[in-house]
């Protein structure tokens, strides 16, 4: 199995820079997510790890060996694409056997290996079936089987669940993760779906416009975003971002929004000018006694919880509160932000200001 190190990797296509200068490390056995919107460079990064694209600059190490300029065939990896391309004229067994047969493995060994993989994936019953009549899920399992059967050092997956419908995607996500936990192979997985990334990943890299915005554990990234982009991209609904003019310095523990004092974690950096206060919807509590006020404009029922949208002097604020609370559209109320969870950003560059709450998470990335 393998550790993968990406060091100052850059990729240009003519005048277009797909990846600026990425640096991060994927530890041996990790389930690692490359997350971002379309065009952010995540697939290009994956293809460079695979050897399907060669970087313009920088180094890629797989298990200590520098491979950035080596072709895909000389790297011990297996790639699973979004559009699983199976050989339509072959049955399931022959599809899975293909990579082994083409390596020249003896027939009885191929047979044993394919049986073992089919067992892991729960597709023993369809091994002799043609791939034509299979469901989407079974086709994806066969595609996975073809990747697993080679015992590669790592798996690279490009939105492998993207083509499946919502209910089934959830199921396959669990199955993939369980498979990974059994096999322990390093897996690099590309997705634009933040929930999928949170749910499956040990670590996440968030990319935007070819730049690594943040790298770390899912809960850390969710709680302590390094940039306003991450704050908006992770979480549904996204983090509330309220612009205001103000100043904070070392030791500050509050800011003023529309002449109302709002508590924040103790700052260990300073900024002056237009700042952005970030607070997650579940850390907003409706409290008529609170000084910061807004008008309730919408309530969306979600079963256990509801999302209440309020208009404030600093833009809309969404609060996630219990669905048993009765809210009246049109009414004005106060809002309390849990001070332990607040992040301040410098509006000019979108970067988080360092406080006692987030410095541990942000200092390593």
């Amino acid at each position, binding site marked *: 199995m393998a550790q993968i190190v990406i060091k100052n990797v850059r990729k240009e296509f003519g005048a277009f820079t797909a990846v600026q200068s990425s640096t991060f490390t994927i530890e041996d056995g990790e389930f690692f997510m490359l997350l971002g919107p379309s065009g952010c460079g995540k697939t290009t990064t994956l293809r460079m790890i695979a050897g399907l694209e060669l970087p313009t600059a920088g180094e890629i190490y797989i298990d200590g060996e520098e491979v950035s300029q080596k072709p895909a065939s000389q790297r011990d990896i297996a790639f699973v694409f979004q559009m699983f391309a199976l050989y339509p004229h072959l049955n399931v067994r022959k599809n899975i056997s293909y990579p082994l047969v083409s390596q020249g493995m003896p027939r009885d060994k191929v047979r044993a290996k394919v049986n073992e993989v089919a067992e892991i994936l729960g597709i023993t019953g369809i091994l002799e079936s043609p791939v034509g009549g299979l469901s989407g899920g079974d086709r994806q399992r066969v595609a996975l089987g073809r990747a697993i059967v080679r015992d590669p050092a790592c798996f690279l997956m490009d939105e492998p669940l993207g083509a499946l419908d919502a209910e089934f995607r959830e199921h396959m996500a669990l199955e993939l993760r369980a498979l990974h936990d059994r096999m322990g192979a390093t897996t690099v997985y590309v997705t634009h779906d933040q929930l999928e990334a*949170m749910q499956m990943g040990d670590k996440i890299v968030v990319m935007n416009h070819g730049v690594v915005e943040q790298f770390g554990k899912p*809960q850390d990234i969710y709680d302590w975003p390094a940039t306003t982009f991450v704050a908006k991209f992770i*979480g549904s609904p996204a983090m509330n971002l309220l612009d205001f003019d103000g100043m904070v310095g070392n030791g500050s523990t509050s800011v003023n929004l529309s002449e109302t004092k709002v508590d924040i974690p103790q700052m260990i950096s300073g900024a002056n000018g237009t700042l952005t206060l970030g607070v997650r*919807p579940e850390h907003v509590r409706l409290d008529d006694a609170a000084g910061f006020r807004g008008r309730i404009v*919408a309530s*969306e029922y*979600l*079963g256990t919880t509801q999302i209440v949208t309020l208009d404030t002097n600093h833009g809309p604020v969404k609060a996630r509160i219990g669905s048993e609370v009765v809210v009246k559209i049109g009414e004005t109320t106060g809002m309390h932000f849990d001070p332990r969870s607040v992040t301040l950003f410098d509006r000019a560059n979108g970067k988080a200001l360092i406080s006692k709450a987030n410095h541990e998470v942000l200092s390593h990335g």
Partner: protein
Amino acid sequence: MAEVLLQGVSKSFGPTKALVDLSITVPDGAFVVLLGPTGAGKTTMLRMVSGLDKPDRGEIRIAGQSMAGLTPAQRNVAMVFQQYSLYPHLTVRENMEFPLKSPLLKTPKAEIARKVGEVAEILQISHKLDNKATQLSGGEMQRVSIGRALVRNPSVYLMDEPLSSLDAKLRADLRVELKSIQANLGATFIYVTHDQIEAMTMATHVGVLDQGRLVQFGTPRDIYEQPVSIYAAGRLGQPHINILPANIFGAAPANAVSIGLRPEHILQGQGHDCLVKRVEHLGDQTRLHLSYSNADLITVTDAHTSLKSGDIIKIQPHRPFYFDGAGNRIA
């Protein structure tokens, strides 16, 4: 705007029964979301109302008037499909003006411009109004096709998964917008989706369809809190409701075969020992995959829980659902 009534509507395609004796009243000004997996009959029902398909049996009335024999155009309905179909040689503005320019309507020019501008604003495509339809991204094209329906003033809007091709952020924005458009216009909407968030947040009424039959009709809260069956209970709620053998946690009502537990039906810290198999930090909450007896279940807990896989926690059912052998709710 209008009430829509279906009375005993059946439709088969060859041997496949798409709708079976379906009766439903969509009140004037309601936002009805039809839920069900592929093949439940959602789209077929929309097509019946629109006039694109004819029922084998039964009657459809819009605003009290029978629709038998009327063409889609005569019914004054606006339909948005999952797959947008725009006029590729026209600009966005011309595409959106098109329904208003119908000689039947005689809409004044200034009124057309005002209406198109207003709808474009809501759908966040104002800056693209003079682009050719073919120069747009998929999400933008879909917004134009929604816009083409919204500029009109039909008796009912019929929408078939109109947001499914959009990205998450835009989908969330348009959910709120569509809902407020509907509420402000007092329009009647019949809306088909796979997405339970859309159903819960937008619907005044949810119709749960199962193999061409309407199995429950009520507010999202009714369906979530008082489902009539395992099937209906499974339509809403994330994580999915846990369905386990009825007596797994002790005595169950007579005839009960399954117990249904949503996360809020599971008290933590008391009761039965459970093994934590996997912990998923989703940010705002954490999902626990638990193993108890020979069953697996999923519940949610605090975002910053210190629980990890291999821990043992206690859980206790709290006002759960019980279902009989046919999956119908008995308690």
